[in-house]
């Protein structure tokens, strides 16, 4: 499957700017690592004034008791106060919804935003939690055995692998 990621991101930027009318100076937060790649492009396209935030949800995952800690990664860095701000949370692939749940839990440990919107490059089937994106680059219907991965940071390409 050939998907042009840059085109998807510029479509997302258009949808976001429509959505952001009446919400001046939103904060953008990308989820490590793929979400950060997508977010940094969106951040540039939308010419946001606040710096881009980076969220690493390794400490908020719900599978620690099963598989332990994830290997070392960059810590989260939110270089702003989230209190009473409109937050746009960005991830590459929205799948089970567990990453987004963990990300929202972490954001609330920094403060109380007035709203959070979710932007995802891909929205694939397989949700396990009642979470949906507000802005989506593309919907994909994949079976449980199929995997999709964003490769980057430059250029951004999508890899879809089927079993066997």
């Amino acid at each position, binding site marked *: 499957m050939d998907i042009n990621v840059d085109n998807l991101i510029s479509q997302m930027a258009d949808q976001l700017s429509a959505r952001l009318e009446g919400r001046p100076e939103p904060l953008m937060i990308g989820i490590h690592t793929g979400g950060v790649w997508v977010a940094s492009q969106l951040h540039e396209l939308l010419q946001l004034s606040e710096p881009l935030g980076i969220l690493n949800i*390794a*400490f*908020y995952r719900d599978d*620690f*008791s*099963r*598989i*332990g*800690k994830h290997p*070392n*990664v960059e*810590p*989260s860095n939110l270089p702003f106060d989230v209190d009473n701000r409109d937050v746009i949370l960005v991830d590459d692939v929205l799948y089970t919804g567990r990453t987004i749940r963990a990300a929202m*839990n*972490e954001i*609330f*440990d*920094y*403060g109380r935003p007035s709203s959070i919107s979710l932007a995802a490059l891909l929205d694939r089937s397989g949700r396990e939690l009642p979470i949906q994106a507000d802005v989506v680059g593309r919907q994909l219907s994949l079976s449980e055995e199929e995997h999709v991965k964003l490769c980057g940071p430059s250029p951004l390409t999508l890899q879809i692998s089927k079993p066997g």
Partner: protein
Amino acid sequence: MTDKQLQLDPQGRLKHFLSIEGLNRKLLVDILDNAEQFVGVGERTVKKVPLLRGKTIVNLFFEPSTRTRTTFELAATRLSADILSIDIEKSATRKGETLLDTLRNLEAMHSDMFVVRHSNSGAAHLIAANVAPHISVINAGDGRHAHPSQAMLDVFTIRRHKQDFYKLKVAIVGDVMHSRVARSEIHALNTLGVQELRVIGPKTLIPTGIEDMGVHVYHDLQEGLRDVDVVITLRLQHERMEGPLLPSASEYFKLYGLTEKKLSVAKDDAIVMHPGPINRGVEIDSEVADGKRSVILQQVSHGIAIRMAVMSMTMSTLAGQQ
């Protein structure tokens, strides 16, 4: 079984944390990198992450220590674990219960980790060798043997101020003989590959043969401090001050107490450390302890991050086993 065999799992991951001895450089760096991730947690609105939620950690302090105990408590709390501290001196062992019986009881309460402080060398090792396999043991200081988390927070503090260990000259000053902190620091700093490691103190307080651990011995403070990047001052314990090993506290201060004047031969940007609690006017002058080179209070904050790192790493290893 050696500490090394006991504290690592077959994949070489940290299962218990008993001593620095036997841990390789990669693992020490891994602990430091983990701690780096936890430093920011204390500065947020909600000072905790849910990593160890639902875990029960028991502080077993057979020997009193306010600072170490509270930083372990804070570290556990910031990882969302439940922690209780038992002051064993006042409890069941006084009534004749053996150490292993106390352990069995705490295991029966479904504990996941014991943090052990004991005046006997090897106590944490003994407990680690006898606990149920799902429990991790952290040594919070045992006799004259080891205080690995203190050593790691010290090297963490050094790394945050000075990047490359291989360029550094480090001096440890004072009662090296009775110091488990010094022993653990020597292992950690040599494993991390500092350029030169010195110990400075009177002959009576420097163990003979310590050169075999890869250190240079100085009995003259001024000479030992020349060109160093880091000075670690050790606490002179009160009970030693009046013993046969030392003339008097004031005499000690005159010869080995750290003052601005004596420090002038160290590098201009040298940092001064102390594991606390400090004896002002005995091993260190107030002007130094409160001065611009002092990183003593940063050591305390870093102690929380290091303990969070070690706790999450051992719990992670055990999670992977199940």
